[in-house]
């Protein structure tokens, strides 16, 4: 069990894998994940491990001008 800062909220995760993170997200379509302000390419998700206290941001493409 670890704790991360996800989009400004402190939340617990079952494990340090990205898949544990994906489980707490409302959607995974068209999202991008950054860990400590470093963008993590989708192809690297399965190798990446989160650490306790990591600042994780998840963004999504939306409509805009």
């Amino acid at each position: 069990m670890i704790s991360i800062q996800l989009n400004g909220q402190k939340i617990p995760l079952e494990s340090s894998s990205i898949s544990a993170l994906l489980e707490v997200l409302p959607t995974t379509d068209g999202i991008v994940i950054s860990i400590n302000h470093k963008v993590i390419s989708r192809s690297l998700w399965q190798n990446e491990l989160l650490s306790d206290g990591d600042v994780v941001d998840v963004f999504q493409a939306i409509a805009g001008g």
Partner: protein
Amino acid sequence: MLNIAGREFASRLFIGTGKFAHPELLKNVAQASGSQMATMALKRLHISTENTAAANNDDILTPLKQLNIHLLPNTSGAANAKEAIYAAELAREALQTNWVKLEIHPDPRYLMPDGNETFIAAKKLCELGFVVLPYVHADPVLCKKLEEVGCAAVMPLGAPIGSNRGLLTEDFLRIIIEQANIPVVVDAGIGAPSHAAYAMELGADAVLVNSAIAVSAKPVAMAKAFAQAVEAGRCAYEAGLAEVGMQAQASSPLTEFLQQLNEVE
């Protein structure tokens, strides 16, 4: 045909996807506009602690992709070069494109683009291999510098974003268009099809329209009107506009036979 960074566009109308009431409307507008490039934004995903399964965003990506529209993510919300570069990197991953509409506006009231930060970010993003289309003031000197650091196009404003005031920067747009060796896309301020047609008559390579379509009472019809205006304006530019003068130039022969009436009396 318009060519930006090796990609061809049959339509010179680019659309923004913001402010539409629902995704279905956006899809219909995109179709009616004939546009082949649409801007997108990024936002932080809303994380609910209750973890409701429903996605918190209506899907607009799928319909746009079905229409074969090239997506152009923007860096809206960035207040400096560092934030914009980060936003571009996020967008590249989210939308799987290295194209970016670079916009940096620290001031939320007028959304004026910060030329200095834009230049710094543009230079860096070009070095990183991005296809950069910076949104800038209608500043001919800055536009030239952005071209020199490798930007794929420049997007000078006609008037403040969403103001619908038309080409208030006309004189400077003319200089930018004259000097540019890269496409010039007039962005922001275009509020009516006539503004778009005028920008095209001046020699702009394309225009980007969002609010004027999205906020119209009939967005689909307005999208069509813009498409026609852009096409007409481009056609006129290519045909070459007739000279402007102060004195009358008769377009009918000045026939003398009518004057004979006076002579008879």
